[in-house]
């Protein structure tokens, strides 16, 4: 929560600085942010490569635990594709790239802004923040109507950090492992799906 506020604050500072025009020209150079973006992706990779526990949890739940990230992905893509019919200005792949953020708003909006422009990037930032907040607010309702896996699916890539305490509380202790595994898998696939949809 604190981190989300800090992130949003930095974003707001950037917006305010650009609108008031206090920035030196050099900072608006596209190549700087592109360079840092590749550094970000490299670091995301380092974190995945050095992590140990992703496959250890497979034993207890077997193949079933792998079905949930798959369900989250397919369900999200199906829902977003339907919405794209309501948004004639946006192409299907643009909508899918926003949906493929799976609540990982920082990474997805940065990638989309870099390759598709600030407008779709802002859609992605807002949409994925809303998705994270939907779990913080509606988790009990999700469990009641869609079962204990529901807030995990809705939480997307955040189920191993920000939304984990809420999932533990409303889905129950035994789903912590499912949520951790789900978060790790989705987290890993976000940059891949987003860049795939952007290059289609």
């Amino acid at each position, binding site marked *: 929560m604190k981190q989300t506020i800090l992130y949003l604050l930095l974003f707001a500072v950037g917006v305010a600085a650009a609108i008031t025009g206090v920035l030196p020209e050099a900072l608006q150079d596209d190549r700087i942010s592109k360079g840092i973006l590749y550094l970000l992706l490299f670091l995301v990779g380092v974190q995945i490569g050095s992590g140990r526990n992703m496959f250890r949890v497979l034993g207890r739940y077997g193949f079933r635990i792998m079905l949930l990230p798959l369900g989250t992905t397919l369900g999200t893509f199906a*829902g977003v594709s339907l919405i794209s019919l309501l948004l004639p200005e946006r192409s299907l792949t643009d909508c899918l790239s926003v949906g493929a953020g799976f609540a990982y708003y920082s990474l997805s909006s940065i990638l989309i802004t870099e390759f598709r422009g600030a407008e779709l990037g802002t*859609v992605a930032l*807002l949409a994925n923040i809303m998705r994270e907040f939907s779990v913080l607010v509606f988790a009990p309702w999700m469990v009641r109507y869609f079962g204990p896996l529901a807030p995990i699916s809705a939480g997307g890539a955040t189920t191993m950090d920000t939304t984990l305490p809420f999932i533990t509380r409303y889905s129950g202790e035994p789903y912590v492992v499912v949520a951790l595994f789900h978060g790790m898998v989705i987290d890993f696939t976000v940059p891949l799906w987003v860049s795939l949809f952007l290059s289609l």
Partner: protein
Amino acid sequence: MTIIPVFFSILSGIAVGYLLRQKKVVKRTGILLNLVIMLLLLFLGIAVGSNREVVTRFASIGLEALLLTLGGTLGSLIAAGWLYKKAFHSPNEASRQSKKNIRDKR
């Protein structure tokens, strides 16, 4: 082709992370990652702020975001509900525990 440099960056990161997984440096990746994300969000704000289109159309952009969130989240909720009934809802300790949790909350 967006995906090739993106893919290459992540894969080389995974390789380096795996090779250095025993080293202490790697454990600090999270902090550095956080700093880089903060820096990029600042840049994102700058990109958004200097784009007039985005500033003037902010309300309709917000509505689009809301619709996409509703679609994506509901789609994943339905998938999770179906999956729970089909694959998880067996007499194991996990499902019994959660039913008990819901009952307790009611």
